[in-house]
């Protein structure tokens, strides 16, 4: 017994140390867990606590590393880097720390150039001077989404949500951790990751994209993260986001449009729906833009089906259950009282019952095309490659050449010939309409354009051409509405703002007029080169 006591006394300090070490690891783990479910404030408290408690070098390194991650999640790039460096100094060559530091330093190149604008619930960041025009429009939409989507999902973030607009493709690929190929192939232009929303500036795409819907879409993801504690699988995440993305502008949430209808109809016909399992780990990892869009159509309609059949509250209930059970199949069963396969099959059955049609014949989903700096052609023939029919392309080219030489009527003749080969091409129809507008055939032009609003709602030229028609015809309200839609796709087209200024003037809306004037002046300014902020070695008050 004496021996036992002696031995126990001898090992007591070691046992105590082991216990302490184990407690500290648990502390760090809890911090990481908070971060993974985007409970950043909680994680921050844990990190501060860990920094106080850390005694050994290992602990200190771990605490600094956690603190660094927390700062990153808060969007403080500089602090994140500096804490990371401290961790690295204490414990050099730790794979996790080095990798994180490397990522931070790369993402900081843009992160340090960000300028901020705040709304009540959002912090909007941009880097390129021209991207400052997005702030006003984005702020309005996000605040509306805050209430509308928040209401649907019964979630409102306590902290301001960071929204970052990336000035180029490279910086976006770094920040999003997506590859360039992923982005171009699947057309992913926004992500909700690391407790923030990140989008590519619509300035980078020749035609722009539905960037305001994208913001709402990503915000939905944000809410789903918060509400579910990061337990929702990607397909359901995307489904809910797709279902909610237009909520800021439409009371009625409908996922199906002619484009999705065509994709779904074809997939049902060819029995080529994307399996749910294939949507992991991300829709951005799917093989093609077509597959990605079909997947969006599928998951959006699944959520639509759920809400329609089991009521508006089913969505909130599903997320709550997911948080508790961390299993979508169980959650679906609890909400719908059917197994997931049955639920899935009933969705397919519902789709089939809708008698979907291929509204856009020969629809193809093109990969994203970004504007290139440096060697680039300034002519407008780039989009001719999107015309698959060679004859349609040839006649359109002829039309373009004639139009460029002022032979508007002859150009019309050629565009119409092109239409014989590709009757619903938004490229040809918009060229035809703009030519007709040029020599005063407004009604005929409008007739050509109207169907495109439904078939190709993202095609900005349609809105601009329609805007011109309404403006010429003196229908100011419709013109304003159309140009506003154009802004939601690509606000960098100066024509939109040039048109809106007199519209607001005539409508007696001086504030809006002034705002548009400001936007226009920014767009017409020469590109200002952005200098990255110099990273100072300022001390961090711990």
């Amino acid at each position, binding site marked *: 017994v004496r021996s036992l006591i002696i031995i126990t006394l001898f090992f007591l300090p070691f046992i105590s140390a082991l216990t302490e070490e184990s407690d500290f690891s648990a502390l760090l783990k809890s911090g990481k867990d908070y971060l993974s479910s985007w409970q950043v404030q909680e994680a921050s408290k844990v990190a501060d606590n860990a920094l106080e408690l850390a005694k050994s070098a290992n602990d200190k390194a771990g605490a600094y590393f956690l603190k660094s991650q927390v700062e990153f999640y808060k969007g403080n790039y500089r602090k994140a880097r500096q804490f990371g460096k401290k961790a690295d100094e204490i414990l050099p060559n730790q794979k996790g720390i080095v990798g994180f530091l490397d990522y931070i330093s790369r993402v900081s190149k843009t992160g340090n150039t960000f300028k901020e604008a705040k709304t009540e619930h959002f912090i909007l960041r941009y880097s390129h001077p021209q991207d400052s025009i997005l702030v006003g429009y984005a702020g309005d939409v996000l605040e509306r989404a805050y209430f509308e989507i928040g209401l649907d999902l019964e979630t409102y973030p306590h902290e301001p949500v960071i929204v970052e607009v990336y000035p180029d493709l490279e910086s976006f690929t770094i920040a999003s951790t997506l590859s360039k190929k992923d982005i171009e192939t699947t057309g992913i232009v926004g992500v909700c990751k690391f407790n923030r929303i990140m989008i590519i500036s619509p300035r980078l795409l020749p035609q722009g994209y539905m960037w305001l819907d994208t913001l709402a879409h990503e915000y939905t993801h944000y809410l789903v993260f918060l509400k579910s504690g990061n337990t929702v699988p990607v397909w359901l995440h995307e489904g809910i986001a797709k279902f909610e993305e237009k909520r800021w502008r439409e009371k009625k949430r409908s996922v199906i449009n002619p484009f999705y209808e065509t994709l779904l109809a074809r997939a049902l016909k060819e029995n080529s729906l994307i399996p749910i399992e294939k949507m992991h780990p991300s829709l951005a990892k799917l093989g093609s833009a077509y597959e990605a869009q079909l997947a969006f159509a599928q998951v959006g309609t699944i959520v639509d089906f759920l809400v329609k059949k089991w009521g508006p509250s089913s969505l909130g209930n599903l997320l709550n259950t997911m948080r508790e059970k961390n299993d979508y199949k169980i959650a679906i069963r609890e909400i719908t009282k059917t197994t997931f396969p049955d639920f899935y099959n009933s969705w397919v059955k519902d789709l089939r019952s809708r008698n979907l049609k291929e509204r856009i014949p020969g629809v193809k989903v093109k990969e994203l*095309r*970004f504007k*290139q*700096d*440096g*060697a*680039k*052609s*300034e*002519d*407008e*023939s*780039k*989009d*001719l*490659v999107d015309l698959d029919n060679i004859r349609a*392309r*040839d*006649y359109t*080219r*002829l039309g373009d*050449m*004639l139009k460029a*030489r002022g*032979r508007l*009527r*002859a150009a*019309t*003749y*050629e565009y*119409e*010939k092109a239409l014989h080969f590709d009757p619903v091409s938004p490229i040809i129809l918009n060229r035809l309409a703009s030519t*007709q507008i040029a020599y005063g*055939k407004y009604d*005929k032009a409008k007739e050509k354009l109207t169907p495109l609003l439904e078939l190709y709602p993202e095609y900005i030229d349609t809105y601009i051409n329609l805007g011109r028609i309404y403006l010429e015809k003196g229908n100011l309200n419709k013109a304003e509405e159309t140009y506003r839609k154009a802004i939601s796709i690509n606000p960098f087209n100066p024509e939109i703002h040039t048109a809106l200024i007199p519209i607001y003037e005539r409508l007696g809306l001086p504030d809006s007029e002034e705002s548009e004037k400001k936007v226009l002046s920014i767009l017409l300014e020469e590109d200002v080169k952005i200098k990255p902020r110099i990273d100072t070695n300022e001390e961090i008050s711990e």
Partner: protein
Amino acid sequence: MKSGSKEILERLLSDLEKRRKRVWIANGVGEFSFVLFASLGIASLLAHIHSNNVYFSILKISALLAVCLGFVRLLLFAVLKKEKKTRLAKELDSVSPGLGEDTLNALLLLEETESEKELGASKSLIQAHVDRVALKLESLDLSPVIPKEKIKNHWKPLAFALALSLTLLMLAPEGFRSFLFSASILPPQRPHLLELADIKINYRYPDYTGIAPQEVDGIIGDVKAIKGTIVSFEATPLRSLDKGNLVIEKGHTIPLSVEKGRIKAEFTIISSDGFFIEDKSGRFRSRVFKITSEEDKNPKVAITAPTGDVIEVDEKEKIDIYYTAQDDFGLTKLILTWKTKNGESSRSIDQIKEAPTSIEGRFVWDLSVIESDPDEIIEARIKAYDNDTVSGPKFGVSNPIKIKLKNPRRKHEDVLVAVEKVLDELLDVLGDEVEKGRLQDGYLARNQNDFSIGAEEQNLNRIDYTKINIGIMKKAHEGITSKIEKALSSLGRLLETIKSDDFSDYTSFLGLSNMKIRIEDLLYERRDLIPTLSLSNLPRLDGLITREINEFEDDILFLDSTLKGERLRESLVYGKEALSKYNELSELLEKLKQNGDEATRRKIEKKIEELRGLMSQLAEKLGSISGDVYEGFLNPDAFESIDVSGKLDEIMNLTEQGKIAEALNLLGGIKNSLQGMIASLESGFQSFSSASLSKEISKLNEMIARMKSIEKEETSLRRKTEDLKQSLLKAPAKKEKLADFVERERKKIEELKNSRFLKGETSEGQSHQIVKRQEQIEEETGELVKDITEYEDDLPLHPNVGEKLNESKGFMQGASRNLRGKEVSKAISNQEEAIKALKKAREEAEGLLEKYQLSAKGMGPSVPFVLGSGQPRQGPRGVDTGYVEIPPPQESETGKEFKENLLKAIRDGSPEGYSELNKRYYERIVK
């Protein structure tokens, strides 16, 4: 006594004396000179009176005496003359009366004072006198005491005398002048004249002249021949002469050989001179004979063609230079020399062995060997050398020809500009055709501008032709006709320009040539129709307009596609050039790393500047690439790092700082980017070319596949026929009944479809099957020939293809007949011939396919592709434009000739009666 006064007095008097003496001497010189000139002049003048030695001697002595006298009297006397105090005193008196005497007294008194003699006056008085005289002399102007310098006052007569005497001296008889200035007092004794008779001169001309030796006698003895001629002088002196010399005045002396009373000597003519013969004592001398040395003249050479101020030629071109050259004795060598900024270069035209005196020739000058800057004017001349071995070869230089090497790139750019022009003009025509040309409601209006146009509004079926305003329509179409003519003329000029453009390939050329012909056909129809336009022929006009619109659309697209491809290719060329410059820069940097010398550093600076310019041009070219080509055929990622200006600056800075390794590293990065870009351009260019030619390639592939299939079938059929033959040979008894059997079986063919005969199990069945199959193959071949005729518009297939297929068809028909006529062996022979013909046709088609594929890769001479609407090739003048020979790549140097032949072939069409001949030929084969 003041010593100062004494010194002043002495100094004054001494100065006075010196000045006076100087004037005396100067005057003496002047007077002596005058005497000298006068003596010489007078003597020279008097020498003209008599030309006699004694007289000359008298004159010379007189002149010498006069000169000597003058010298002594005037000059020597003046030099030796001493100043007399009394005379000076006298002179001083003339200045101031009594001064001379006072001075004289002062001098005397001083002299006595110094000699310490007893003086009759006190020293003080003497001193006072001296002081007074010195003071007076000092205060007075003593210049009147100095005599006047005559030369100053009389220089004019003196100069005149000099000039006159010199003139007279010059004009004096030659003998007198030389005698006057000789040392002898008496004139030399002149030798006695040696008279010579029977002078004979033999000339031996230099070998190179090729002139035979010549003997001349009965002459006065003067010699005249080309330099280097050996002259043999022979004569008979009229007095006895044992020994003597032939003396060349400005040269050497040659001893005479005397034989049998005749003297002989040889000398070589070196220059014009004189010679005489004299005896050894020199007492007898012949007259001086004249030597006239004739010079070998320089060759004359002239370039007769090409002519003109500046001849523009392609850098790889060969030009024919026609020349003529003459020389008096012979030409040995002709050289072409030319000057560029890099210096003078030359090339031997001809090494002539036989040294003709006249040459006319042609020299083909290959300009590819010339290194010059584009657009530099090169001056070329021909140098002709003669065969002169005496003075050395002399040369003549021709008139210059000025050559300007065309910048092939600029030429190509001109072609592209011309293509754009045609494109613009055709677009204008198309615009007019659509807007003003078509039959539509617009023509119902009174004013052309009231048209309401748009395809959706057009419904030709509904147009009431009777309501159409013919006048307005005619006017509109006349305008269109003139625009088409203009475009056609531009197209013609473009084709001419392309002929000498190395960068344009045959694809474009043929396409444009065909385009021209098609437009000409339409224009021909238009010219026929429009002047007589009436309501009745409106439907014809309607058809013409439709075809014209289709044609112009296709033409414009063809031109547009050509321009797009060319822009892509230009970028590629610039990219490759830039890469090569980067490699050079890299080598220079490596060199700098090794030796670090200043010259290399300067070269690097220069190279970087070159690169900067080139990259800027490249960026410009890339910017001109059409957007759809850029998007459709290039990889945009490859062009992200095209702006390297900053990096080049950095390389320059690093080089200046000596950080060569870093500079090389940076350069490596740029090179990699550029290589990526070039790879993208190359692949884009090939894809674009392939896409442009894909229609033609797939048609050809399809035809070749059909030919292969027919060939295979025919080969298989021949084997079956062989088997049939074998089976018949094994069963000769049945042979006799074969015809009957076949005939019978043919009637029963339908019923026997499933019988064992049709399965080929008997020789009769086999034969029938073979006949049937042969007919089918023949039919397939006929179909193929028909299709090929249809494709003629788009594919310029060699006529051999069609001919061989027709030939094959003929042999197949023969084989069928043979089989039906029991002639199995003949059938096999015909089948073999058919297979051979098929093979030939296929090989021809495969050759064409290969050319297309090369063209699609942007290599070698391509073949035309025509975006035509398949209109008939038979133009209104019976032109057959179906085929043009395409040379293989290795023959592409003869581009211009080829293109000219091509155009001619397209224009000329088939010779008269060719079609009929062809028809008969096939009929003969078939028979």
